[in-house]
């Protein structure tokens, strides 16, 4: 049976929701009787029963809801609640509720929508937490709320629980209040100006029809929204440095209120076996600052430290949590051992002084090893001693499997098909086809070049023969035509050509020396005619040249 309040602090004009939950039954014999409610007007908010099925187990329960309206300021202990179930009386826990005066100033009317900020306490020590409370008072319907918190160097905001909604009264008017609480921690001393928080939202203005009708219902109402941003008031936080007086040596900077617990499990073992020492440091404050405690070297006991486990808890009162540290202790010899206490210092924000807390001294009884184990141990020492003084092979103390793979990235690797499919097959095929296609294109290109040259060569002989048959060619024309023929026929680019060069060219292409000589002679005659000023006159060699070309072509083939 539990008793829960929706928040630990409220003003005189607020309403507080209290829920008493009874688990394990769907109805109780009696209504809960509640203690500590003398300073409140109590209104019942109904009863609800619930059934949960978790891992096949059915859990039933009943919740009693109450609305509390405070009558006076002060700090009150509410509860425990008592209820009878099947003739048996069961009790709940008790909760503390602080009622403070209303924050409203009597002179200012803040309209139907405003944001209010408060800080408690306004003076803290470094690393101590203050509670920064934001309240949105509204009389209109709003939506899409977003909050911009002020930013300041060395100040950290941590939200405490979920936002709470309740009814309150401000200047005689009823408001719906949305409250969000933050723990405010400062890492350095100083006076911090906390700038206003800003809340943006859409405010809906109802435009209902004037006459009541079937559709005169919020669901059917027609509303239009307009964006609105409102700001809270600025605040000031005074952060004091931790006092120097009484500061213990090796103080870790831990601030808050903590307690320490420790135990040894089992406390009786045989030599060579292991016992686990657990130290739990828990409390309220910035628990991340809890340092890892170190167990001193113990004579004849090997100590293996486990990874500490930090557990952070955030409730409406602020930050809290715990750190669990474990050590495996393996005694080498039998006997009675005392495990010394571990201590830690912190600055207690309640008493405003440094405190040192210590775990109790623990006793460990160690029995002698069993004979069989002694022989194994001796074997290890004798047979498996490795090089170097005092070194031994690692002795396995247990056998077990390694844990499951829990990382989400494991789901994306080691799959059966991977990328696979067409991409991989194309990867195999495409390079081959790319090579084959390039090879074939290159080959075709070469072949084409050769055939174009041959065609051009054939064309060159034909063109020269046709030109000669036209007759009335001058020595200049005939020389140019023969040079063009040789250029095109043998794929040359000669600007001028001596008779000897022409003869050499045709010989190098397989023409007989006789034919080459005939060509040389013909060209020499033409050259003579040109150099003796008869270059423009009609030459009578027009009939011999085609025969000579025909012979050259024949011999080339």
């Amino acid at each position, binding site marked *: 049976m539990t008793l829960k309040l929706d928040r630990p602090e409220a003003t005189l004009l607020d309403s507080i929701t209290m829920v008493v939950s009874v688990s394990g039954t769907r109805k109780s014999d009696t209504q809960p009787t509640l203690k500590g409610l003398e300073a409140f007007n109590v209104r019942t908010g109904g009863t609800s029963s619930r059934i949960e099925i978790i*891992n096949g187990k059915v859990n039933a329960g009943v919740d009693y809801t109450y609305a509390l309206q405070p009558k006076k300021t002060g700090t009150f202990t509410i509860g425990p609640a008592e209820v009878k179930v099947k003739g048996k009386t069961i009790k709940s826990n008790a909760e503390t509720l602080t009622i403070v005066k209303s924050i409203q100033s009597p002179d200012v009317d803040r309209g139907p929508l405003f944001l209010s900020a408060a800080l408690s306490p306004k003076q803290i020590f470094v690393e101590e937490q203050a509670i920064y409370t934001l309240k949105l008072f509204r009389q209109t319907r709003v939506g899409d709320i977003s909050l911009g918190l002020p930013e300041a160097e060395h100040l950290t905001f941590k939200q405490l629980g979920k936002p709470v909604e309740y009814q309150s009264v401000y200047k005689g008017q009823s408001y719906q209040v949305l409250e969000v609480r933050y723990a405010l921690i400062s890492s350095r001393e100083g006076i911090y100006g906390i700038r206003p928080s800003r809340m943006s939202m859409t405010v809906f203005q109802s435009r209902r029809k004037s006459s009541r009708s079937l559709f005169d219902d919020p669901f059917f109402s027609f509303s239009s929204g307009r964006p609105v941003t409102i700001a809270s008031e600025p605040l000031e936080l005074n952060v004091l440095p931790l006092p120097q007086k009484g500061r213990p040596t090796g103080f870790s900077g831990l601030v808050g209120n903590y307690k320490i617990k420790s135990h040894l499990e089992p406390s009786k073992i045989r030599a060579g076996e292991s016992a686990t020492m657990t130290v739990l440091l828990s409390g309220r404050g910035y628990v991340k600052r809890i340092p890892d405690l170190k167990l001193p070297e113990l004579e004849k006991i090997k100590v293996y430290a486990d990874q500490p486990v930090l557990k952070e808890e955030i409730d409406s009162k602020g930050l809290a949590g715990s750190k669990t540290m474990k050590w495996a202790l393996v005694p080498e010899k039998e006997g009675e051992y005392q495990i010394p206490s571990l201590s830690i210092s912190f600055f207690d924000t309640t008493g405003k002084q440094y405190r040192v807390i210590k775990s109790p001294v623990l006793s460990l009884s160690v029995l002698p090893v069993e004979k069989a184990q002694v022989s194994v141990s001796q074997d290890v020492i004798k047979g498996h001693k490795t090089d170097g003084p005092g070194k031994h092979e690692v002795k396995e103390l247990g*056998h*077990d*499997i*390694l*844990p*499951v*793979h*829990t990382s*989400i990235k*494991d*789901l994306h*690797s*080691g*799959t*059966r*098909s*991977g990328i*696979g*499919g*067409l991409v*991989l*097959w194309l*990867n*195999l095929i495409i*390079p*081959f086809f*790319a*090579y084959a296609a*390039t*090879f074939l294109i*290159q080959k075709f290109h070469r072949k084409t070049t050769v055939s174009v040259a041959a065609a051009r060569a054939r064309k060159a002989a034909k063109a020269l023969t046709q030109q000669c048959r036209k007759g009335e060619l001058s020595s200049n024309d005939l020389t140019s035509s023969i040079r063009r023929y040789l250029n095109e026929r043998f794929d040359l680019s000669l600007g001028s050509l001596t008779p000897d060069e022409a003869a050499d060219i045709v010989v190098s292409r397989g023409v007989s020396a006789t034919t080459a000589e005939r060509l040389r002679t013909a060209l020499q005659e033409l050259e003579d005619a040109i150099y003796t000023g008869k270059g423009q006159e009609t030459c009578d060699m027009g009939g011999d040249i085609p025969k000579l070309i025909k012979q050259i072509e024949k011999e080339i083939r």
Partner: protein
Amino acid sequence: MRRYICLTITIIAIILFSGLDAEAQTNGWEDLFFRANQSFKEGHYQDAIDGYEQLAQTGHENGHIYYNLGNGYFRLNQLGQAILNYERARILIPRDADLNFNLRHARDQIQDAIAEPQGFIQMAFFWLDSLSLQEVFWGFGILNVLFWGILLIRLFHRSEWNYYLSLVFLVLWLIGGTSFGLKWYQVWTDGRAVILKKEVNILSGPDIQDTVLFKLHEGTIVHHERSEDGWFLIRLPDKKRGWVEAEAVEQIKRDLTVLPGGRHN
């Protein structure tokens, strides 16, 4: 024009919604994975196994899922199922250190001492055992690109360096191709099966009345030759053969052996 606009909007909407659907499905099986992990952590091993099996059966077969399944069965003291799933995981993530440790630990607990002989191919292509089919295929794919790439370069630019390089790539390409072929064959013809019952009789024929030839124990790996009327003909590496009831044994090859082309064995 309006028709085209409508068509475009429809196509975009289909693509977007199909993407959302895929994401939603992804989140679904991620949730299932987390729930199974949580069940395992809390010691509800059967719930964890059910979750992992559901993932495996809904197409999310994954080496890590089989590894976790193996761990779940190991915790339930079902050594046969544990080894079966570890071996399935090993096909997909053969070099995972956790897996190899746990598989070795599980094998240590098998009662039957059966040594797997090493053939010439296993010795010559020793790397095949520590690579998955996908990895071999990818490796061969890369060598294939390099080999044909260097030949392509030689079509345009012939030099001494690319001649020797092409020879090196030719050798690697042949080794890669042979490795891929062998791995494919190995996976394709994987007939290994695991004994799931604490102790089973291996008979001379597919009938309960047949002579008991020998006994095998949970976790032992045998080779499945053929099936007949609810019976498996199995073989041991030392050539012992016999028939066992199909329900006492399960083949390692599920349809893990999807080939890179997406085809199933």
